[in-house]
């Protein structure tokens, strides 16, 4: 397989780090070479955050550049738009349609862009957009947005990384008492789309 470049973008505090760690451990368990690049410190405080996950036979650079991502997993609409340049033209976008206003919008100094999903669809063919927050709420675990999204990603990755690998990886990364509700949310995400639906 060619190297696979996955970006996870969102807002500091949304749980992007956990998702990238589960994915990274999954890649390790598959025997791939893997690098996961994270953001810590100042940028985490409610700022725009991105983690890069690269896996394949041999991975050198820990970061993904413009036009190089095979998949972008966006935890928030505006962040999807911000990082859209990084997706390959034939790449796949998984977008949580949740909106979190940044401070300039909160202050009324900037406008939250309208019809973001339409704009992204006009550029990319493979876009899966849905309200992952509602789905997480349905499973009774409002904090499981990240795992719902990871479930959707797991369906797309099935041929390179069987679902069970990611479940085993979650067992390694998530504390035992929190595992069960996370598995439920993961399954919910997994059963939401078929890979073919990414072509809309």
């Amino acid at each position, binding site marked *: 397989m060619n190297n696979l470049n996955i970006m996870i973008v969102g*807002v*500091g*505090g949304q749980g992007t780090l956990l998702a990238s*760690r589960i994915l*990274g*451990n999954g*890649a*390790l368990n598959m025997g791939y*070479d*893997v*690098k*996961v*690049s*994270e*953001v*810590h*410190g*100042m*940028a*985490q*405080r*409610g*700022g*725009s955050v991105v983690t890069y996950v690269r896996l394949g036979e041999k*991975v*050198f*650079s*820990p*970061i993904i*550049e*413009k*036009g190089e991502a095979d998949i972008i997993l966006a935890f928030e609409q*505006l*962040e999807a*738009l*911000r990082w*859209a*340049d990084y997706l390959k033209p034939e790449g796949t976008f998984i977008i949580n349609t949740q909106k979190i*206003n*940044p*401070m*300039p*919008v*909160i*202050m*009324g*100094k*900037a*406008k*939250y*862009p309208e019809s*973001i999903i339409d*704009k*992204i669809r*006009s*550029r990319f063919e493979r876009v899966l957009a849905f309200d992952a927050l509602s789905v997480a*709420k349905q499973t*009774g675990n*409002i904090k499981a947005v990240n795992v719902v999204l990871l479930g959707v990603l797991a369906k797309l990755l099935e041929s390179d990384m069987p679902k069970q690998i990611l479940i085993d990886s979650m067992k390694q990364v998530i504390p035992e008492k929190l595992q069960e509700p996370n598995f439920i949310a993961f399954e919910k995400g997994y059963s939401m789309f078929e890979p073919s639906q990414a072509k809309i």
Partner: protein
Amino acid sequence: MRKLMLGNEAVARGAYEAGCRVSSAYPGTPSTEISEYIARYDEIFAEWAPNEKVAMEVAVGASIAGARAICCMKHVGLNVAADPLFTASYTGVNAGLVVMVADDPGMHSSQNEQDSRYYARSSKVPMLEPADSEECRSFVRKAFELSEKFDCPVIVRLTTRIAHSQSIVEIQEPEKAELKEYKKDFKKYVMMPSTARARHVEVEKRMSALKEYAEDCEFNKIEWNGKKIGVITSGVDYQYTKEAIKDASILKLGMVYPLPEKLIRDFAAQVEQLYVIEQLEPFIEQYVKSLGIKVVGKEIFPVMGEYSSSLIRQKILGEKSIKMEPPAADIPVRPPVMCPGCPHRGVYHVLKKLKLVVSGDIGCYTLGALPPTESMDTCVCMGASVSMAHGMNKARGDDFAKKTVAVIGDSTFVHSGITGLIDIVYNKGISTVLILDNRTTGMTGHQHNPATGFTLKGEPTKEIDFIKLCEAIGVERVVEADPFDIKTFEKVLKEELSCDESSVIVAKRPCALLKGVKYEGPRRIDSDKCKNCKACMLIGCPAIIDSDGRIEINEALCVGCMLCTKVCNFGAISKAGVINE
């Protein structure tokens, strides 16, 4: 066993495998997690020191006492620790001594972009630079041996992308490094002119030996791949180079000081076009040029910011940069903000209202410089708020000082604010210092410090009493105030500013993200009572949003700190209904 590890975690593993017994550090992004991972090994005594100078001295003492020791810091921390470093280079070590320093090219979380490699050269100690997590482990492990072999501290330099990237590590069994015998050795460990002159001779001998060693050590290697393009590089730049140019020969330097003259000459002689690829300063490049070798470096590469493989392709292969139109113009930025429930928000609400000159410092509260509070005038380095306020006082007189306040966090005050405060008292300043005591070291991710009552390992310990401390220094006006009681806080601040002597206000309230900090739950805006005056918007809480002209509270974000209820003049904010999820 193969394990996916953060560079910082792998550093901790390397120290553990080397039988390191003592670790001391001050938190600083991107180095913080090294200590947090070291603390998980029961075999290692690991601590947070008040600052990096203390951490370095603890490690030097442990090494001389016979234990392998490590100290860890970010790049600017090495400035603080430089004093002991330069002389520890003279004393040398007993057991191995490793200094970890993490640079931050691109300034993801720093106030400058300095290049720590110059410290290796000026303090005359060797420096290693790993290029992935596996090298973090193996280089740190070997650094202890190197330190003992050449009788000197060894610096291991990381950059953000190495420290904060995970890659695969082959973990090894730890070795048993016994405590070495402690021997009194006045000529080696007591540095004063007569002894230091003799030790300087040893330092120069050691550097010659290290130069020889660098020529064929295991840290430096050549990867041949054609003779057209040759690249000298190290650290993460090696990874970018490998990604960018498939047919370049690479001299990968794992030891970036001292540099191997013969190896570089041989390599340069065999390639048609030689480049040095190194982020930040032309450290390697200037050395290569000093040898009279033709090489291209900063003529085409920037001294600012991070590199990438596409940058290397553009500069060396002449590839055009990818110009993609973003799907939309005017994408609003998302700067970091103080969290909902942050106690600093109360402080800045009052500072902004009183239009004070604010001498600032380093921590979460530095965010008070950004909109909407925009209330910080200066931020230079750890502790500078206190001493700079004093400088302002002496420059412009007491009337100016009565409109000026120094703002410093609890951990930063312990780090290097105390000495500034002593200066104010000693030299008859009248400045007012606000210690923002949120019971943690916040920005680096909640580390304990001498004022929290717990150690790095989570054990209960004594905690600093700021009031007694400031009184002991000689500050006669020391008060504690709750930053969320904004009326009283404003009154106290005005009182302390107006008086003709130095004063300290301890603004005490725990960080909202700490365990055990519980508020009553989300608030809601009663649209019948709300006059849309937007007073609540001015506190800059991310949970209060302008939804098409109507002000709402995002109940998923609101913690119920009640600060907004205190700025609302119409009593329009009340407790939200119980949400049944």
